[in-house]
């Protein structure tokens, strides 16, 4: 229509377009960044520990986030971490200690039960957290890149907070009932807990990878945990098992954890190093296989989530 209008319009357009030459000169930039190659997944999965380490910031953040969300959200907050093992101890003491009269290595049954339940609760909440980590974070998994192994690791670390609370409760109960903790506990409990962490992470990797693809895994997990608890010497002493079965029991890594934890803290038995060694080997195998399985399924996580 009007020439004038058209002309001005065109001039305005010209001004607003940006030439590619406007980019900053190359020399001003930091040295050329390294490149990442994106290709089809490898035939054999590989675990890149260096990359995992470089994402430790994210891992710690996720740990902190889980703790914060957990305690901000639940009404009972931190008291839940106290109530859970205490209530279980009460129930077990009544059922197994009073009615079934299960022996407890010469210490009050309630202390005995709680000293099994504290490491067990750590294990089961770490395992649950790791197993659900991918499903609970689909928004991250489908929207951003990071080494996926960060996800199951975070809850393993986060569950330590609950452990510390439960441990404090245990110490209070021991003092109240006149059971003195041994000094070697300080030295021996950390490796025993590490064994629990490794086991939880290994099984957690398996569950997490299966969980994102198969819906029924979520429902099967609590059963698995329950069964596992009763097949570990949580509410009964290891000595209750027939003698010839005891060497085989160590193939369950949680036997090493619970027996080791009790021996270290209560000093009722010598440290069962043999059992712990076998348990450690089994736990290591579970971890390696779990991490490799996880890595091999990793490429489909975003597609099926």
């Amino acid at each position: 229509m009007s020439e004038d209008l058209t002309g001005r319009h065109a001039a305005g357009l010209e001004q607003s377009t940006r030439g590619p030459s406007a980019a900053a000169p190359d020399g001003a930039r930091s040295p050329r960044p390294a490149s990442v190659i994106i290709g089809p997944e490898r035939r054999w999965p590989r675990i890149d520990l260096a990359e995992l380490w470089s994402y430790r910031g994210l891992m710690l953040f996720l740990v902190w986030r889980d703790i914060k969300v957990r305690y901000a959200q639940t009404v009972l907050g931190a008291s839940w971490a106290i109530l859970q093992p205490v209530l279980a101890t009460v129930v077990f003491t009544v059922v197994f200690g009073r009615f079934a009269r299960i022996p407890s290595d010469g210490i009050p049954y309630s202390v005995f039960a709680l000293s099994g339940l504290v490491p067990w609760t750590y294990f089961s909440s770490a395992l649950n957290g790791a197993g659900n980590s991918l499903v609970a974070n689909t928004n991250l998994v489908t929207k951003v890149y990071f080494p996926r192994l960060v996800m199951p690791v975070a809850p393993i670390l986060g569950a330590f907070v609950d452990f510390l609370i439960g441990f404090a409760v245990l110490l209070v109960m021991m003092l109240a009932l006149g059971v003195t903790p041994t000094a070697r506990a300080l030295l021996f409990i950390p490796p025993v807990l590490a064994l629990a962490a490794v086991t939880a992470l290994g099984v957690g990797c398996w569950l997490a990878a299966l969980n994102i693809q198969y819906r029924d895994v979520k429902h099967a997990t609590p059963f698995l945990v329950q069964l596992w608890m009763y097949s570990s010497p949580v509410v009964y002493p290891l000595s209750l098992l027939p003698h010839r079965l005891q060497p085989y029991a160590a193939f369950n890594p949680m036997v090493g954890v619970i027996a080791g934890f009790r021996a270290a803290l209560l000093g009722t038995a010598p440290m069962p190093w043999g059992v712990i060694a076998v348990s450690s080997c089994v736990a290591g195998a579970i971890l390696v296989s779990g991490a490799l399985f996880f890595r091999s399924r990793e490429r489909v996580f975003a597609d099926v989530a």
Partner: protein
Amino acid sequence: MTALAIRLDQLSKQYRFGARPRRRTLREALTEAAASPWRNLRRLAGAAGRGTTEDDTFWALRDVSFEVGHGEVLGVIGRNGAGKSTLLKLLSRITAPTSGRAEVWGRVGSLLEVGTGFHPELTGRDNVYLNGAILGMERGYITSRFDAIVEFAGVEQFIDTPVKRYSSGMYLRLAFAVAAHLEPDVLIVDEVLAVGDAEFQQKCIGRMNEVACDGRTVLFVSHNLGAVQRLCTRSILLEKGNLVADGETSEVIRQYLASHDTEAPAGRWIDLTAAPRTGSASARFTGVQYGSGDQLVDFSPHPGGPLEIVVGIDASIALNRPRVGFTLRDRYGGPLISGSTYALGVATPLPIGYSSWRFVLETLPLRPGPYQLELWLADSMGASVDRLQPALWMEVFDRQPRGFGPHYNPRHDGILYCEYSAGRVEAAVRHRTGGEPASAATQSR
């Protein structure tokens, strides 16, 4: 040519048909494995998973190769389902390609759709740090950028509020601010401007420009061709997973517009059952018909005339207060007119099964040309149930035969139509304050 930032070499991604691969139960998988151990052994022996039957898969991206230079801003356009998001997901390593490879130099920051890696329970502040950690940033570095991010997003008062209480616009602002300020070497942005208001869109485009001027590379996907035009000097066009054009943006856009199927005809029922769409799909648009109701002009809508849009919806759940709406967009995807039952306060429930809905516009304020008609359906909370963007292209025709009357060029004259009059004011009349209204010799159009 400066150094490369991205290089793609025959990058391809294959997906299974159906929205997602079937998520079965482990029990099923195990029973199947037990029932046919032979087949499973064979499958294990062959390249793991590669030998899936060909017929239930398709290529979301096929042999796409191109290069992007350092500091370049590349637009990616294409129709729904063309593979744009898939391309970005591959480049940001969220999913792995089926074959081919790509190389990316430097840190990639991606913003894919609105739901970025934010955690709803955490405050805005925590989420900024979380996102920084995901990008692999040091805490100190994020802190040094924090104020700029919050200011850009304009959410100062809400920074310590959990983001689940944010509006979707605020959410997007913060997400964009984080991605754009943490200075990744390659910034990948997928279709996010659609949510923000006009002012924020402007701000985003400005920021992406700055990022690019800073020597960083930007990949920008949008249906808003106007924004692509403004931001990108070069663009690529994807069609059904193939790269069909790569070059100067205006040229690629021209090709994209030319490649549209002929506009859907007016006055006829158009089947939408197979159209690409997004949403929860518990109710779906099955078809649409639009027209002027005027048989003389083949039912074609014309400027100033009526427009009637009838849609059919097939619902598998009943919705109490459904929001049924349409948006008319210009050929570049910019929204022009929208309407919905929600905006009018219509509270008719959506029954299970088939129902049809109608919108009537008394006067269509659009000049001749092609327009996109988008249809959307949301539940009473506004969550998207079905959305077709666009459902079809419609042409507004001039009632006057070609050759007569003025010829409008949408670029200079705009696309809105309105009734007006014009004429010379009688010479005797002077404009004085409080003077008589001028009597004018006017010509009405």
